[in-house]
């Protein structure tokens, strides 16, 4: 078998050198009746060719977003990833490397992490960033727990326009802590929630641009919260938006969490994704996740190491800031490579193109009878109001190989007042033809 190098000669020889007669002698501690006597009900091994056939057939049952017009966003985005990115991140020295606990032979990974942390801090307008978390939603949950550690307060307010999956995750992760999570109602028309400063307020979590696509100035809210001793947590689900919109750091955010998938990573049906996490330097010891720092070796040569490890589970155990043990290493590498290729100029250009496409989409949609665009402001996502049953409409278009967007009811639940709304995104991968096809199909479906 191609992944098992021991041969029929090796095994008996090795058993003999150990002094064992049979392999099951080495399983002597397993209770005899628990050692499987019968083979499991599973197929036998197969050749690479046979597996390619099996998996390709499964892949063929999926409609790849790029094979037709596709306008899906709501937390995952279709962007063009340059060929260089995949090529570089697939190098075995990156792909099959371990966590850099032995820094002398991991300077590749470590320097990438240091550069990544710097890129994330600058992108978010914050002072320090970690080496990544699982994804934006779990990073959001960790941010809420961190705010509690800093403020010692227990009340958490979640904006109604925060991606519902993210709000769900916050509720799950605080379920057995004694935080009190207040979830505001959704406001598809936009506008910032009028946050009441209550006693014992730890933090407010706002998404910008929000799940309906609206763009907000968060500075006044940040000021109000700081006066009350509470923290502002800003969530960004579309990392490319940071190339066009004022950064959360500039607006006064205390913790910023971003879904980084848009840069360097395919949509992959929802994972693995990339949680970016950034905060103020004075909160660094409360920040979860891995951190890479600069230092020198014994010859005075610059090098990088994982540092401030006493925050983490392998040292602090039950007193750790989090139980997290991995980061999203490979996805962070892809992000970093893509961002290195883009640079400041390229990222701004990319963001500008995304915005231009979305603005054009909005204009074309406005011309379709029976629907209206809810948004005044937007970056690359918008909300479309349709006569009724957005989900049914989206399904009819999907049957014609047009992925028209995400029905808001898919995220918020049916019968919650958003059954007539579709969330659409436009990126640099959408063409004018895509937009025309969508509008024509919509018009047709509604007549």
């Amino acid at each position: 078998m191609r992944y098992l190098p021991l041969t029929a000669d090796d095994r008996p020889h090795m058993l003999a050198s150990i002094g064992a007669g049979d392999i099951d002698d080495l399983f002597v501690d397993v209770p005899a009746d628990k050692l499987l006597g019968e083979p499991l009900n599973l197929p036998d091994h197969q050749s690479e060719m046979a597996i390619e056939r099996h998996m390709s057939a499964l892949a063929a049952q999926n409609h790849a977003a790029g094979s037709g017009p596709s306008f899906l966003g709501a937390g995952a985005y279709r962007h063009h990833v340059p060929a260089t990115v995949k090529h570089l991140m697939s190098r075995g020295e990156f792909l099959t490397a371990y966590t850099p606990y032995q820094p002398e032979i991991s300077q590749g990974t470590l320097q990438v992490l240091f550069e990544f942390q710097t890129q994330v801090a600058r992108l978010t307008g914050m002072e320090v960033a970690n080496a990544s978390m699982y994804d934006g939603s779990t990073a959001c949950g960790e941010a809420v727990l961190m705010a509690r550690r800093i403020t010692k307060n227990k009340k958490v307010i979640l904006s109604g326009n925060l991606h519902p999956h993210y709000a769900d995750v916050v509720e799950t992760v605080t379920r057995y802590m004694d935080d009190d999570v207040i979830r505001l109602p959704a406001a598809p028309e936009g506008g910032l929630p009028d946050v009441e400063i209550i006693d014992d307020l730890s933090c407010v979590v706002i998404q910008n641009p929000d799940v309906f696509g609206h763009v907000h100035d968060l500075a006044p809210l940040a000021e109000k919260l700081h006066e009350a001793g509470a923290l502002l947590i800003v969530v960004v689900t579309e990392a490319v938006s940071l190339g066009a919109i004022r950064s959360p750091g500039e607006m006064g955010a205390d913790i910023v969490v971003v879904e980084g998938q848009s840069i360097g990573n395919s949509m992959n049906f929802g994972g693995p994704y990339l949680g970016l996490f950034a905060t103020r330097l004075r909160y660094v010891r409360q920040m979860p996740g891995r951190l890479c720092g600069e230092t020198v070796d014994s010859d005075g040569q610059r090098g990088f190491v994982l540092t401030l490890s006493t925050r983490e589970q392998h040292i602090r155990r039950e007193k750790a800031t989090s139980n997290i043990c991995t980061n999203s290493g490979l996805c962070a590498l892809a992000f970093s490579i893509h961002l290195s290729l883009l640079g400041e100029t390229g990222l701004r250009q990319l963001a500008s193109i995304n915005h231009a496409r979305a603005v054009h989409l909005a204009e074309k949609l406005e011309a379709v009878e029976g629907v209206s665009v809810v948004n005044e402001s937007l970056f690359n996502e918008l909300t479309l109001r349709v006569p009724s049953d957005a989900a049914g409409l989206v399904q009819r278009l999907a049957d014609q190989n047009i992925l028209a967007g995400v029905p808001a009811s898919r995220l918020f639940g049916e019968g919650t007042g958003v059954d007539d709304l579709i969330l659409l995104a436009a990126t640099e991968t959408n063409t004018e033809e895509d937009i025309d096809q969508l509008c024509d199909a919509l018009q047709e479906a509604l007549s």
Partner: protein
Amino acid sequence: MMNRQGRPSQAAENTSRTTGPTSTGHKALDLSEPLIFEQDRPGQTGVDFEDVPLSRSRLGGLDRDQSIGLPGLTESQVVRHYTRLSRKNYAIDMGMFPLGSCTMKHNPRLNEAMAGLPGFADIHPLQPTSTIQGALAVMDQLGDWLIELTGMPGVSLAPKAGAHGELCGLMTIRAALEARGDARSRVLVPESAHGTNPATAALCGYKVDSIPANDEGRVDLEALKEKLDDDVAAIMLTNPNTCGLFERDIVEIAELTHAAGAFFYCDGANFNAIVGKVRPGDLGIDAMHINLHKTFSTPHGGGGPGSGPVTFSEALVPYAPGPFVKQAGDALTLDEGFEPEAIGRMAAFHGQMGMFIRALTYMLSHGGDGLKQVAEDAVLNANYILSSLQDVMSPSFAGPCMHEALFDDKFLKDTGVSTLDFSKALIDEGFHPMTMYFPLVVQGAMLIEPTETESRESLDEFIHALRHLAQSASSGKSNSFVAAPQYAPVTRLDETQAARKPVLSYQPPEVDAAE
């Protein structure tokens, strides 16, 4: 001022080039490489775009007008940068990683090829389910394999990593207890446990109570019996345990736990030792996370991403979180509703699909027969190493081990060489060091896990290197150990300085001077 490592704690003048034997700082194929921020050409970019005119800005006046601070490089600069950096890494593709508890096995490229198919990579998680039936089939098949391999009826694919799976499992247990009106406050965790175990218990609001190990490296059954009362919600064990030993009393431990009304959580990090040979469900385990990046060969990627699906016993199934793939007539559907008594959403969307594809590809490659061989070869390889070194190193426990062999630093007593020094010398010999100082139950632990993908030749070379180092240490050559590694791209790094004066992002030199 000096620190323990005998080096100045003040920042030396930071150099991106060595002041070494060459004018460039390069040493033949070991090419020194500055940071991207040190190569910035403002306005430079490595990507081309077609122009798309903007009719009017709708950003609400919130345009980003301050500079972001991202450097500009060309495409070929970027290729050189990351290629050079990659060459400073050790990797499985290059050589053995004998890291106990990590299962650093070969990462097949077939897995990568399948995960990269557009039909898998270019699908959005919120596409209508009629358009992603193949994706749902992958999740369904992976779930079935995990159920069959563990002998446990329920599975949640949601957790994004092993530690996330632990959280999922333990929260599910708490939900089950609260549903029967029996909230309890403690979780029992062995002293030898991985740090994620107590950290996870704390996140569930539980107090952690430690169980000692006996002289044979296994859970002290008498101590466990004393601690098991009706205030214990769960025990969290790893089996085989972190000393590489199968818990002989595991069936009795499970029975005692259940009799006390508690649940049995198993950390599945060491599943590679028993996959296809033993089913955790048969042992009485109620919840177990599986590290797809360990047992099922998905790549470690320099630290992640992982994937930690959890299998459940019948009693816990109602409380486990989805989303779940279900049959609806002829088609598959995704149930994204969370039952009121279940613990709720663990993460956005549906799990680490990219890792599911890789793991399923691997499972299909090995088949049930191959996976059993995996466990047998993994255990054989570890025992071969144990028996080949027991005369020159100090195994911590007698008898055969499972897939990993634990040594302590007794054999280094009075040599002036520590476990750390010994490991750094192994780097010069061309190997990534074994796991050091874990588990905490022995002094100066060295935990060696070769996995089944090392050939006999590779093991013999490793054994040869360790024998040589052990003999070197005992014959008083401590200097070469303390100076190790000498042949890596950098020598030992000042971790004290890194922690005392953290520099966590690039600071241009002018900023340093101002401090």
